[in-house]
């Protein structure tokens, strides 16, 4: 039986109490939030943060980013990854941009390992917002993984002049390691979005 896909619709302006309630202070439990690590989670602690910028360069206050990643050993917590479970790390986080004064998303997570195929370590991101009718996918690679990035097949499929939009800058400060990754929806620095 051949069926047709249900069409996508925008997440709208009021997703926060449904999808990211704890982050925004609503009385509803979140299945996932911006804090992805527990004390016993293995790996290098990182903060992954950025803004989502519209075509006028304004930081968007009602976007939501979903983050899906491998653990520090490069394993995904999913049955299609045959290498075994990697508790206590689900690899999934959600952050809205509406609870930060600069409209940033801010994830606390661990740096993922290489997944064991030919891919460089990376974060998989899904972008939602009011005014976006179908979600878009992108990836964040790590600036300190230049050698692995140079061999990554997904980056190789991106025009060279746009690859930089997929690389998060690393900063080490008193609060630890921060990777910054602004997402440009449009413009000269428009982030590469993938048709997955």
């Amino acid at each position: 039986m051949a069926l047709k896909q249900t069409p996508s619709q925008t997440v709208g302006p009021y997703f926060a109490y449904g999808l990211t309630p704890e982050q925004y202070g609503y009385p509803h439990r979140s299945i996932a939030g911006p804090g992805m690590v527990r004390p016993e989670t293995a790996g290098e602690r990182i903060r992954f943060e950025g803004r989502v910028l519209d075509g006028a360069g304004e930081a968007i206050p009602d976007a939501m980013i979903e983050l899906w990643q491998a653990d520090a050993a490069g394993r995904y917590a999913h049955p299609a990854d045959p290498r075994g479970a990697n508790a206590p790390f689900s690899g999934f986080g959600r952050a809205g941009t509406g609870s930060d004064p600069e409209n940033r998303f801010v994830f606390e997570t661990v740096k993922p390992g290489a997944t064991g195929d030919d891919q460089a370590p990376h974060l998989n991101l899904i972008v939602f917002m009011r005014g976006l009718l179908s979600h878009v996918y992108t990836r964040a690679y790590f600036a300190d993984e230049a050698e692995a990035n140079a061999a990554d097949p997904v980056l190789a499929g991106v025009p060279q002049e746009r690859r930089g939009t997929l690389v998060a800058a690393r900063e080490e400060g008193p609060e630890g390691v921060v990777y910054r990754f602004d997402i440009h929806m449009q413009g000269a620095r428009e982030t590469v979005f993938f048709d997955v």
Partner: protein
Amino acid sequence: MLGSEAYKPRDWASHPPLVYPAYKSTVLRGPSKPLVPLKQRLSELTGPVYGQESLGPLDHDLTRNGAKDGEPLGERIVVTGRVLDEDGRAVPDTLIEIWQANAAGRYIHEADRHDAPLDPNFFGGGRCVSDREGRYRFHSIRPGAYPWGNHPNAWRPNHIHFSLFGPSLATRLVTQMYFPGDPLLDLDPIYLAVPAGARQRLIADFSRDATEPGFALGYLFDIVLRGRAATPMEG
């Protein structure tokens, strides 16, 4: 690769475009460059897993999960259906999250300034997990229409927001369910952004069979996620 099959592509004849000028906020927010094709690998063939253990006891029942000192006002509804893939196979054990306005057309979200009353006994958010046959079921209150600023005298049709994961990152879907016979549909640029042939898939069917006698009107809304590609993916 790893015994997994890729998922069929997103069917852009079914989904709205990324920029649809009649919906004004798409103009500065929708990507302007073409999407870059990406061959699915382990990163896309996996995805977040949330099953029954992620649910609270009243998560599926919006008529009760926000109640403080009574019942919410409005017309009680049952929203039920199946989550399927493009080959008609059930998508079991997948998380479905919903959120909606109350019967007066007001969201509990603090940014909603519509001058309509909040209902102290209605929150408007819920979730459930599909069963082995892909079935899901919510109890709720029929949401009201509400005005928005897109164009003069613009009103959103009654709708419920749906979020689904499916088995992988590739099957992710966020959509909206509408109600049959709503005169606002043909005036709504968010609905009209969907290609004409696909719009009907967003409208639930009234169902007497799903109606619970003396309690709530039934609506059926099946959701179709991306299916597996016919051929195994190359290494």
